[in-house]
């Protein structure tokens, strides 16, 4: 490749320089077949970055005290110098919005553009979870709709009422996700139109479910019909559709929170992959520019310095250790896939017969498009990575007074570690498995939830508070039972608490 005149590498950025670099990055990205949404790159100040933090990355959010709390926290830790701000935030939308911090040097801006505007952006567009669960083109409109709707409700029904409803929804937000069913995509106009109809329709449905006059006596059959007929995992959805006394506007708010939760769900499941993919590309693209002579030594050294910090993995006994760094794991795994394709060893041929020696670009694209963290790790974590990271697995059984090393980075351990690490990213193991079990429609209208423990891990103490929130939405008794291994179901929570003091609190 012919050497070209290098781009200006002075540390201060200007919009012209941003544009030049962006053009070159885009060219290289296209060369590596990165398919992206159009980019909208916004330059913001540190304060605005803190605003963005506070709204958990949503460019437009409804007003709620928790965001204020988060803002105050961020502001304080930042002002005391305990925390640096991220270099960028990127939003899964079309056009894909990325925020660049004003303080960044030119090199950092280039890194960030390659990372966010081409790495994350192409991930949002290509990964199957994002494709099927989120609709990038409508999210901004939807958030705007949500903000306005909540504001309107506050105006009509008072801030306190709306706040209480939102609090309750937030408490159940993690359980407002369809894990298996795929939602349909709709636009803002449709959403608005439907929302009106839905309000009325929903209320009528609910009314018919709770009709107090017995229609026919056949409901008193010997076989009592269960409602719901199957346990429901999406608690917020269940509330929205079935809670007896919710007002129509409250149902809509439940829906809004549920939708937003759903929107973020893929991001939770693809942390390692998403960051790894973005790191792979900022690394590859900028090195490509360096090979072409477009960026200088000075530039590439500053870049490598930042890059190394980002993908550093402190060891388990380091004071900086706080779990596995998703940037480090993801980046190294993608780089390793490339290595396996280009320079496979015998070990790689044994472990990855399908990809060893194949076209690396095809393979990384395939991996990005069709996996989430859990499956990505169980598919692609190679013995070499396990050795490089010196991974080891700890088995911790509450019954014992000790913890046991289950596996280390040796021949017998690779497979075990791979499985354990994959499970560690399996959201269904991480989040409490709680489902709506039953509603006593003919009796006291109480709602029963069932917790199924994973590996005998009990539910944390916050459950009682959450039950209060659930009770606020359901407005009749709420019970929580835990299914023990023996199969019996034990009540572990109830709201409101029984009038007589419960003899044995479990």
């Amino acid at each position, binding site marked *: 490749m012919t050497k070209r005149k290098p781009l200006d590498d002075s540390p201060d950025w200007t919009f012209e320089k941003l544009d030049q670099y962006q053009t070159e990055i*885009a060219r290289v990205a296209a060369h590596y077949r990165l398919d992206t949404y159009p980019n909208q790159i916004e330059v913001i100040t540190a304060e605005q970055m803190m605003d963005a933090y506070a709204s958990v990355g949503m460019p437009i959010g409804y007003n709620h005290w928790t965001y204020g709390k988060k803002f105050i926290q961020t502001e304080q830790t930042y002002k005391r110098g305990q925390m640096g701000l991220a270099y960028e935030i990127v939003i899964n939308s079309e056009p894909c919005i990325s925020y660049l911090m004003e303080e960044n040097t030119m090199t950092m801006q280039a890194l960030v553009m390659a990372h966010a505007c081409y790495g994350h952006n192409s991930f949002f567009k290509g990964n199957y979870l994002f494709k099927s669960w989120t609709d990038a083109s409508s999210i901004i409109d939807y958030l705007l709709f949500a903000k306005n709707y909540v504001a309107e409700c506050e105006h009509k029904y008072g801030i306190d009422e709306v706040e209480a409803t939102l609090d309750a929804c937030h408490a159940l937000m993690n359980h407002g996700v369809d894990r298996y069913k795929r939602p349909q995509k709709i636009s803002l106009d449709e959403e608005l139109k439907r929302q009106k109809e839905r309000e009325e329709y929903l209320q009528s449905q609910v009314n018919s479910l709770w009709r107090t006059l017995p229609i026919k006596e056949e409901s008193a059959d010997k076989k009592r019909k269960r409602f719901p007929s199957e346990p429901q995992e999406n608690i917020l959805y269940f509330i929205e559709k079935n809670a007896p006394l919710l007002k129509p506007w409250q149902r809509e708010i439940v829906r809004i929170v549920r939708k937003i939760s759903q929107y973020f769900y893929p991001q939770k499941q693809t942390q390692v992959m998403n960051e790894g993919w973005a790191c792979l590309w900022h690394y590859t693209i900028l090195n490509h520019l360096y090979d072409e002579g477009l960026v200088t030594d000075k530039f590439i050294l500053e870049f490598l310095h930042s890059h190394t910090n980002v993908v550093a993995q402190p060891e388990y006994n380091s004071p900086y250790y706080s779990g596995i760094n998703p940037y480090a794991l993801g980046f190294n795994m993608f780089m390793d896939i490339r290595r396996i394709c280009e320079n496979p060893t015998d070990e790689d041929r044994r472990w990855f017969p399908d990809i060893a020696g194949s076209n690396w670009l095809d393979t990384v694209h395939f991996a990005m498009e069709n996996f989430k963290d859990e499956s990505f790790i169980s598919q692609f974590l190679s013995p070499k990575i396990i050795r490089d990271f010196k991974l080891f697995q700890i088995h911790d059984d*509450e019954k014992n007074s000790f913890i046991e090393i289950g596996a280390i980075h040796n021949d017998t*351990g690779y497979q075990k570690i791979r499985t354990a690490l994959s499970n560690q990213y399996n959201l269904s193991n991480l989040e*409490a498995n709680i489902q709506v079990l039953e509603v006593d429609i003919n009796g006291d209208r109480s709602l029963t939830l069932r917790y199924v423990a994973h590996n005998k891990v009990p*539910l*944390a103490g916050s459950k009682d508070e959450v039950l209060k929130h659930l009770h606020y939405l359901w407005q009749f008794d709420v019970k929580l039972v835990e299914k023990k291994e023996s199969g019996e179901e034990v009540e572990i929570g109830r709201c409101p608490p029984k009038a007589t003091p419960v003899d044995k609190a479990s």
Partner: protein
Amino acid sequence: MANFIDRRLNSKNKSTVNRQRFIRRYKSQIKKSVSDAINKRGVTDVDTGESISIPKKDMSEPVFHQGSGGVRDRVHPGNDQFSPGDRIKRPPQGGGQASGQGEASDSGEGEDDFVFSISKDEYLDLLFEDLELPNLEKTQLDKLVEYKTVRSGYCAEGVPSNIDIVKSLQGSIARRIAMTSSKRAQLKACEKELEALEADKHDHIKEVKELTLEIERLKAAIAKVPFIDTFDLRYRNYAKEAVPTSKAVMFCLMDVSGSMDQATKDIAKRFYILLYLFLTRTYKEIDVVYIRHHTQAKEVDEQEFFYSQETGGTIASSALELMVKVMEERYNANDWNIYGAQASDGDNWADDSPLCKKIMLKKILPKARYFSYIEITQRAHQTLWHQYQDVADQCGYFAMRHIRSVEDIYPVFRELFKKGEQSAA
């Protein structure tokens, strides 16, 4: 394809509403923190905000999540010493985990308070929500007692020290442009003509000579226009403007006889702090005069006022008389807004109380904006209270309240300064 947007100039306070929501939600806790903080401050220390702390558990955002215990398998990096099957003592709780979810609040442990600061204004607003300064309106309308010199444009005459150079030179430039423009036009025309003649192949000696002379004449005429003229001079103009006085003096009167114990004084101190803070909202300059009395009154500093102990009987009128004296000597009612606050446990020598009433009505209240009397006692009211009740009936800006314990301070203060009506007790 990319589109760059510079958002730096957009408003940065996107989170303001959320911050206010937060403060609104935790108002009761924040208020408690605020009123606790009052106690720690000196009377006149009001220039700072306040750091507020709220117990973390009050503001948790609960979610269903897995607790500790059960069976766990975790993978960690950096093995440097372990072999499969090694058994290690379980490290103390809290180490070695934290799932990928960032700060999924590990409720239970770490019950630190959530500490943050509010600005001075937020602090005072919280403290004085819905309160109004008594008689303020009246003061401002009644007495325009101070004059301030303010700039008011420019004028053509004045003393040299007030010359505004920029304005004057602007005038000079304008005048010169105006006076020379026609001559410049002629000059240009002549020069053009001269150029044309010189370019001509034929000689035009006479015309050239004439033109040269004309050009010289014009140049001289232009040069004659003076650079600056008295006509150009502009002077800064000043006018006097009446402003309402922004000075206030607050008299703190307190009984320090043997019957007043430290607890009672602390209650009184809180009351004075509140009053002082309240005044700072309106006045720029505030003097505080501390007068303590038993059988005799004495003007003292803050430290002595609150913390030195003396014993003796009680003659309240002595303090009132001293206040009158200080007012006459130092605080002319035309220049100063006078506020008074008296705290006592109600004990007074019975024969003295009618005298107090007299001084109050005749000498103090006519000059003061407001006077409040608080009685801090658990017992029944005595003569001073009854005498003052007469005063309160006659005078709208004399207020009195009864305080039993610390908790009463704030409500009583609020009641005294309630918005809208000047409640006479």
